[in-house]
């Protein structure tokens, strides 16, 4: 008698949790710390996914001496070839993974960097709308762009660990990779924000005009933030392509962005741990709902609509009654406070200025 597959559940949940965590942490860097209301998060996720998918499929074919232009990976012949060839050689799989991650970072980051230009001209409240509409523009473009499959998208993307054989083990290895990337993202962002540049991020968020008048190159800081945030989102996107083994334009709808926003707002703007908790709660509830809803037997209304209504209300309620979220923003941690405390305790102050 088959039992509940707890291990499978954990692997699957934590993988999704990991992918969303990267998005939430970077969104928190952009929106929570630097004040960029990025409603186009899905753009960078999508770019990463397409970069990962395109590189892996084309190169898998090419390096196995199949001409990817004769058997394009979006055609049935290409897919048959990909299933035949993909995921057989460990060094090739790992190499493609590494390459995809790097290129996805650069590609998504660069687009983020360039998108700073239109949003400089509009006030903070309009940044969201500009990026949102760019996301839709990207989707229309992808549907028409044949080399990445157009409306078909790309399928049968070889997974990086499928050479292991056992699906559980390869899933576990992939999970470790995802969680490793989450840890890397978390530590990088945590260190970035608890440093002088983190102080500048917060200053720009609080008052970008004052920051500009204090000599901070605000456009560069915004571009940098979007570059970093988008780059990491791109890496999450590349991993997502491997996880789903298929990408198509309609995966990258604004709903993804809104989900991430709800997670970040619930967890607390300006607190990365909060974001992770927000993601964990959301993804876990989603998973549990999948187990619970069939037993309710409700067919007149869709539980999914109720879930989204709840998400919408949650955003409003958190903003109204708990604007800081579950975990409030923590004060900046740099050695300055510590040094100041020492000085004040000693009662010595050197009044030097040049």
């Amino acid at each position, binding site marked *: 008698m088959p039992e509940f597959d707890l291990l499978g559940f954990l692997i699957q949940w934590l993988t999704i949790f990991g992918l969303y965590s990267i998005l939430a942490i970077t969104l928190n860097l952009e929106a929570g710390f630097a004040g960029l209301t990025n409603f186009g998060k899905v753009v960078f996720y999508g770019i990463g996914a397409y970069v990962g998918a395109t590189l892996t499929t084309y190169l898998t074919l090419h390096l196995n001496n199949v001409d990817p232009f004769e058997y394009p990976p979006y055609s049935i012949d290409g897919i048959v070839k990909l299933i035949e060839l993909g995921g057989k050689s460990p060094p090739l799989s790992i190499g493609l993974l590494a390459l995809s991650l790097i290129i996805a970072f650069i590609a998504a980051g660069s687009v983020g960097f360039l998108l700073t230009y239109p949003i400089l001209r509009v006030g903070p409240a309009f940044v969201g709308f500009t990026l949102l509409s760019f996301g839709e523009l990207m989707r229309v473009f992808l549907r028409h762009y044949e080399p990445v499959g157009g409306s078909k998208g790309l399928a049968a993307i070889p997974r990086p660990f499928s050479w292991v054989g056992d699906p559980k083990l390869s899933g576990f290895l992939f999970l470790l990779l995802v969680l490793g990337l989450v840890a890397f993202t978390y530590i990088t962002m945590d*260190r970035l924000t608890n440093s002088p540049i983190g102080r500048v991020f917060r200053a720009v968020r*609080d008052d970008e005009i004052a920051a500009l*008048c204090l*000599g901070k190159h605000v456009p560069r800081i915004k571009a940098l933030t979007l570059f970093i945030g988008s780059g990491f989102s791109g890496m999450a996107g590349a991993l997502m392509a491997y996880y789903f083994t298929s990408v198509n334009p309609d995966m990258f709808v604004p709903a993804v962005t809104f989900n991430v926003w709800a997670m970040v707002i619930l967890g607390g703007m*300006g607190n990365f741990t909060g974001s992770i908790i927000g993601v964990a709660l959301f993804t876990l509830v989603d998973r549990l709902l999948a187990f619970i809803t069939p037993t309710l037997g409700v067919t007149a209304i869709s539980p999914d609509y109720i879930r989204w209504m709840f998400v919408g209300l949650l955003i409003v309620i958190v903003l109204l009654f708990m604007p800081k979220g579950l975990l409030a923003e923590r004060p*900046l941690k740099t050695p300055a*406070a510590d*040094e*100041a405390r020492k000085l004040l305790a000693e009662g010595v*102050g050197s009044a030097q200025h040049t």
Partner: protein
Amino acid sequence: MPNILEVRDLAKYFGGVRALDGVTISVPEKSIVGLIGPNGSGKTTLFNVVTGFYEPTRGEVLLRDDDGSVERIDGLNPNEVFLKGVVRTFQVPRLFTSLTVLENVLVTPPVQIGERVLDAPFKSRWEKQERELARKAVGLLKRFGMGDYVYSRVTELSVAHIKLLETIRGLMTSATLYLLDEPAAGVDYGVARELFNYIRGLREEGLTFFIVEHRLDVLMDYVDYVYVLHNGKLLSEGKPSEVVNDPKVIEAYIGG
């Protein structure tokens, strides 16, 4: 005494509105110069043009460097003007509300290793500099009597301290010219005098101040020279005592 700042025939039109129309002003080094005028006379627009918010429609803004060379700064961006050594404050104070007083001051210094993105994640690279800056900042805060507020949020400060803090932020750099937009607005008389005493003290140390102020009772006791703007044009200029008695000024203030 050479001029640190010269504004020559400066004009700024917004559509048909002539916010500034041919203004010429010079601010000598190590002086306190006042700029007064009724509401809407173009004082803040002048500051905004000098600090790079707006490009002037006509005219030029010249700034003298440390080494004595003169440079045009109109058309530069605000952050670039700041890096040339011009600090401004705002009529409505603009502090970073989520940061502590100490951190507000620490944002200012321009060349921080920890603000470079590749160095920021590695604390060891910037910790030494950060500690040095912190010592300097605490020193400054103590000197202006704000030693007790080092860890306070700026939202907890009094209006006077907020005004003071905006000025102190500038002192973390080697800036030499301060443009203060109504430093004494909303501050009671005693505190306002205290603030201007500090300004006078800083002037002795070699700084230059160019101040927009409505509270003439305080201002006139401290400035060396006053310009009066009216409808975007210079109405009068001179020593405080001369200006106060200028009939044109009196008429503009009462009639305007």
